[in-house]
């Protein structure tokens, strides 16, 4: 083991910023991070061993105790639930003789849940040793179980098990016209950097991750910083449940995305870029590295790009299962090899980002659009859309519809049009922007896709009338409790309290005051949390309480109060230990008169 760890540390030049890469390699090899490896790394990288343990415990894909040699994770996204995830997981557990959350006694296989894997249009989905498994069904589970029991290496599994489809159903302005590699850079150099930034300004492009900050301003601020070193970061940590457009863009439009990053580097004066790829998209890693190699060969990356004098190259960094790293300052922390805990802002990354240097962090789709604008100009893009939202938005549509997949719409498109296109029937409502977004009901279909009305990072989950709304809210609320980074109390404790209070109502233990208590809790978590995760964690409850109060009320008992847990059952252990079963050894759930 010592030689193995030393080798990996050496390959990473003993850089502490490469800690995640090093841990990925160790985890892949040993199926956990052994204690001696931690000690050794601490001395090789010259960082505290507690810092390494902190990082291991922070990320879902690193473990301090052994996982199975085949580590199976099943996506716990609501979209997977809709497609029958629960029954399939049960079937898998029986087939492999391993309980969810456990490692089989022979150490061969472990099974657990994981947050959304970004395969919502082709679920239920899972991961085996990090590699995506779409379209899970009984037949595939039979096949997978057999491969595991025969100990076939994952690399030798039939490729059709790993076949992830793009499902581009409705391409638009951007998806219909991919650029030829180099086009945007040539136009940029020909027009001039300042003039290209002006075109970006004219286009009024806003960040596509959800927040909608004006891209030209972000680049301008970074360019204006009096520093020599600057960085470009592409945020491909697409963790919002129900979002998968970045996966498709990186699979089929990677050239253009990387070209967008390179244009950005030219404009702001960066030599180094990073593509932060979520760990769930490991299957794209080699392919993306290949794209980088090709671009270097074509003179589109590396030294003296297109003889312009620009030196710029890109590294791909893999995340390790942490939703919070989609927040830009948490992402930067993660890039630096640390726990993904959001920084205080300001200072914003444009002034102090990666290693304290000015850094532009943009979404995958933003770089895609920026490349197109650099080539075709700002007016071309600004000619469609609405007053404050120009151009198009690429949506990931999943849930109860005939044609889940990728759709591109001009801003301003009514929700009804989108639902008709994808074949949504008997609508209950749509979750727009993922769990952190908004649930709209079937009475709001004239609302529009736009920053000034319904802003979204691209997640669009459809629910029909046969779905139980509270189950959906429960799934989202549990998601946030799981993904809270634990840094600030309002979020760490608050998201768990939200989860428990909601469960109390759903389980039928709620009474009159419990919905009020839930509402108060929502306000507290929303107003006092440190970052966007906590500030939006109550949104699923808030937006559904406003629209469907009767659904919550219908679960309440007509008594003043009932405990949210089974009182008598909580005496069971004591009864067993004292060997008692008399009347005094029992409690009623509510007081009897």
């Amino acid at each position, binding site marked *: 083991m010592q030689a193995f760890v030393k080798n990996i540390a050496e390959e990473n030049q003993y850089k502490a910023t490469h800690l995640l890469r090093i841990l990925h390699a160790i985890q892949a090899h040993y199926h956990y991070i052994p204690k001696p490896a931690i000690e050794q790394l601490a001395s090789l990288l010259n960082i505290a061993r507690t810092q390494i343990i902190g990082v291991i415990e922070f990320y879902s894909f690193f473990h301090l105790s052994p996982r199975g040699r085949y580590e199976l994770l099943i996506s716990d996204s609501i979209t997977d639930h809709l497609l029958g995830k629960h029954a399939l997981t049960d079937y898998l557990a029986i087939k492999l003789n391993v309980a969810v959350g456990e490692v089989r006694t022979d150490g061969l296989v472990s099974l657990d849940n994981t947050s959304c894997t970004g395969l919502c249009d082709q679920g239920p989905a899972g991961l085996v040793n990090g590699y995506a498994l779409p379209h899970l069904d009984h037949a595939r589970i039979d096949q997978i179980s057999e491969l595991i029991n025969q100990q076939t290496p994952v690399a030798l599994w039939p490729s059709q098990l790993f076949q992830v489809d793009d499902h581009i159903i409705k391409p638009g302005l951007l998806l219909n016209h991919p650029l030829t590699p180099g086009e945007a850079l040539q136009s940029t150099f020909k027009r001039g950097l300042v003039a290209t930034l002006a075109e970006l300004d004219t286009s009024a492009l806003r960040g596509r991750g959800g927040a909608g900050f004006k891209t030209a301003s972000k680049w301008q601020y970074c360019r204006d910083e009096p520093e020599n070193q600057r960085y470009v970061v592409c945020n491909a940590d697409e963790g919002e449940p129900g979002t998968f457009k970045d996966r498709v863009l990186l699979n089929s439009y990677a050239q253009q995305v990387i070209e967008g990053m390179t244009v950005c580097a030219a404009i702001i004066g960066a030599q180094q870029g990073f593509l932060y790829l979520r760990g769930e998209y490991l299957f794209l890693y080699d392919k993306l590295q290949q794209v980088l190699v090709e671009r270097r060969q074509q003179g589109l990356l590396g030294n003296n790009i297109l003889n312009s004098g620009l030196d710029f190259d890109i590294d791909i960094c893999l995340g390790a299962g942490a939703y919070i790293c989609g927040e830009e300052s948490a992402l930067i922390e993660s890039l630096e090899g640390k726990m993904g805990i959001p920084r205080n802002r300001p200072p914003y990354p444009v002034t102090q980002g990666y290693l304290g240097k000015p850094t532009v962090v943009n979404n995958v789709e933003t770089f895609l659009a920026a490349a197109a604008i650099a080539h075709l100009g700002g007016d071309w893009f600004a000619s469609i859309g609405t007053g404050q939202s120009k151009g198009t938005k690429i949506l990931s549509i999943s849930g109860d519809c005939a044609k889940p997949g990728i759709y591109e719409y001009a801003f301003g498109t009514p929700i009804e049009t989108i639902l008709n296109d994808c074949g949504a029937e008997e609508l209950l409502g749509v979750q727009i922007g993922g769990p952190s977004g908004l649930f709209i009901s079937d009475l709001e279909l004239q609302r529009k896709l736009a920053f000034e009305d319904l802003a979204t990072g691209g997640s669009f989950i459809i629910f029909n009338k046969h779905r139980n709304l509270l189950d959906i809210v429960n799934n989202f609320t549990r998601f946030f409790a799981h993904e809270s980074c634990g840094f600030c109390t309002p979020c760490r404790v608050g998201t768990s309290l939200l989860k428990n209070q909601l469960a109390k109502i759903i389980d039928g233990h709620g009474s009159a005051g419990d919905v009020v208590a839930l509402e108060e809790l929502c306000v507290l978590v929303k107003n006092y949390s440190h970052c966007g995760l906590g500030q939006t964690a109550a949104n699923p409850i808030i937006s559904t309480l406003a629209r469907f109060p009767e659904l919550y009320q219908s679960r309440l008992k007509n008594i003043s109060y009932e405990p949210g847990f089974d009182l008598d059952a909580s*005496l069971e252990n004591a009864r067993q230990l004292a060997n008692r079963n008399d009347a*005094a*050894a029992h409690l009623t759930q509510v007081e009897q008169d």
Partner: protein
Amino acid sequence: MKTKIRIATTSLGGCFGCHMSLLDLDERLIPLAELIEFDRSPLTDIEHCTNCDIGLIEGGVCNSENVHVLREFRKNCKILVAVGACAITGGLPAMRNFIPLEECLAESYLRGIGVENAQIPNDLELPLLLDKVRPLHEVVKVDYFLPGCPPSAEVFWTFLNDLIAGREPSLPYECVHYD
């Protein structure tokens, strides 16, 4: 004479520290006694609550007897108050929530130093322990929470005077700021 406000107090899984803190009102107890009288309380030896205006409870819910006492208070007190950290969160006794009950009892009654005739107590008179220590509000509806370990005499003074005067109680920052 004006009817006095009737108050009941008890300690469930608590240390009586909150009661001691109430007594820290010192000379202010005298004017307070003009306004209130005690019902069931360690201070009176009354065994069961009758109709009260205010119930003050310290300590969390550890066992079945605590549940019965808590319910008696809820039933008989117009306003029920969780007093102190244990009543609000479970407090120190709740540290056992992370250890299986079986291990807790074994440590005390089977493996403890100096234990003779080791056995888990099973007398019918003894209340059984809940799996986990619970704060009051997870078992009954609680109207007010007085934070602190213990809440200072000032907290009791402010809170009771507000209630007696018919105001919505409000604790100033100094009363809930601990460092």
